[in-house]
């Protein structure tokens, strides 16, 4: 009895507010709400909301953008985080200060980063256009351009994200026993070989964790869309999570909204499952030479 008493408050909280909402989300996605004559009427419609999505161009476009964003942003952030972590492993007099300064974006909330970057990328008076102007590059439209807006959001999220994910990789790198590198050096390994046969296998678990967690986080990336682009221009930044949010909060179409969220949740689980499946299997295959 005693253990359950200790467990009860956190367990109730976890079930009620973390797990149960997933089921509510799915359940409500099967319901159509009509507002005829001012009265709210709820009708259970099975998978009709999903059927509508199937013929919905906005939804497909949104899915496409989400796929594109996922394919670009996650490898980019992981590569940059890993590169930065490796750079910061070097011994230097100033390494503590340098590391601390690189952690700065972790302390800056995403809305803040979004607002400041939004002003930096302002097409008329922004800092970036001023700076590139010094090099003779003409002013760019950035967030108001269909072709550039998503890239700007990738840049903002990466600025904020790299430091955070780097922290895990740095901790993982520091955990690798120094003897491994010494042994590799005695065997005459080049720096690349050391990276390939010591660092990567030893860091595999951390990289996998970061990759999965980063992917999950980027599937729900929408603060820059809410604050800056509203999914535009011309739906170019209208990712699934934002489309779901907009359907619900702008158009009160909760059936559609929650169908989209449910689909996104399923996609997230599948992608993460695949990552775990493929990447962790490889883990056993590679041996430290």
């Amino acid at each position: 009895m005693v253990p359950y008493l200790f467990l009860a408050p956190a367990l109730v909280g976890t079930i009620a507010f973390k797990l149960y909402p997933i089921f509510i989300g799915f359940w409500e996605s099967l319901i159509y709400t009509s507002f005829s004559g001012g009265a709210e009427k709820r009708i259970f419609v099975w998978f009709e909301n999903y059927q509508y999505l199937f013929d919905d161009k906005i939804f497909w476009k949104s899915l496409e953008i989400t796929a594109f964003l996922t394919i670009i942003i996650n490898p980019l952030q992981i590569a940059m985080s890993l590169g930065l972590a490796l750079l910061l492993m070097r011994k230097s007099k100033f390494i503590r200060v340098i590391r601390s300064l690189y952690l700065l974006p972790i302390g800056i909330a995403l809305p803040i980063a979004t607002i400041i970057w939004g002003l930096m990328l302002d097409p008329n008076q922004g800092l970036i256009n001023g700076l590139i102007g010094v090099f003779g590059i003409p002013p760019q439209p950035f967030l108001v351009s269909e072709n550039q807006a998503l890239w700007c959001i990738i840049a903002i999220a990466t600025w904020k994200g790299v430091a955070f994910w780097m922290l895990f990789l740095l901790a993982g790198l520091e955990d690798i026993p120094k003897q491994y590198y010494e042994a590799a050096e005695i065997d005459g390994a080049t720096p690349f070989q050391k990276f390939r046969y010591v660092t990567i296998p030893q860091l595999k678990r951390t990289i996998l964790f970061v990759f999965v967690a980063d992917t999950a986080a980027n599937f729900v990336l929408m603060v820059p869309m809410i604050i800056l682009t509203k999914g535009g221009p011309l739906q170019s930044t209208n990712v699934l999570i934002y489309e779901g949010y907009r359907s619900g909060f702008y158009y009160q179409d909760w059936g559609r909204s929650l169908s989209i969220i449910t689909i996104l949740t399923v996609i997230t689980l599948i992608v993460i499952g695949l990552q775990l499946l493929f990447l962790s299997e490889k883990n056993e295959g590679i041996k430290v030479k």
Partner: protein
Amino acid sequence: MIMHFKRQWSVYLWYLVIFVGLIITILPFWWGVAASFKSNSDIFRDLAPINIRAFLPGFSLESYFAIFENDFGRSMLNTFFVSITSVAGGLIINSMAGFAFAQFRFKGDNIIFGFVLLSFAVPADAIAIPLFKMMRQIGWFDTFYALIIPMLANGLIIFLYRQFFLGIPKELIEAARVDGLSWFGVFWRICLPLSVPVTLGAGLLLFVFQWESYLWPLIAAPSPELHLIQVTLGRFSTEYEMIWNQQFAASSIAGFLPLVFIYMFQKQFVSALTGVEQK
């Protein structure tokens, strides 16, 4: 000789890359803080055409006074209240759960622990919309309850405490039990006082989660009296679109506190987050 030159060269390259990276990391921050101390027209003057003054701080506090006239103080107080209650409540219930997982073997413990870890993997923003519907059903919509209570239970914090409590010697706890201390006494008088480092890290995480949360407070508590700091900030950026100095001032204040805390307790923060003990 050539070897020596080569090594030097790689050091210079390293410094160059690090330096460029630092500029990109710090620039938005630096510019924002510098501009928050300027009048709006000065900000624009320094930008078009761009000159070095854009990166030098001004001396005006005008924007800071202005934001507090625009209800910024209210949202700061709200955020303090919500953050502090969330940290206190979250630390208590999650440490209790961590204690249960570490000290007892009971029916279903592995399954329950699996669920806790699973909940930690669900991104908060994905369940925000269904959770919002739930808040409306139980009448917590647009109240402080909605802002605080759903955020208390946290799989990561439970996990951190469990790991720590597993390391406390069993003999210590058995001795206390023999002396007649209740299980709650063991938890409260022995285990919790030992867990200061975890509590610091976990508390900091909970604080930062709440202080930086945006989407949930935006949808769960739309009344202006309940706005939290990030929500107010987001509102400023649309309502005062052209008043840049106020946006910078509000951002600076909102960003200041988490930064100070994270830098003060950098070791504990990194340990709590990454699970690796910092030297």
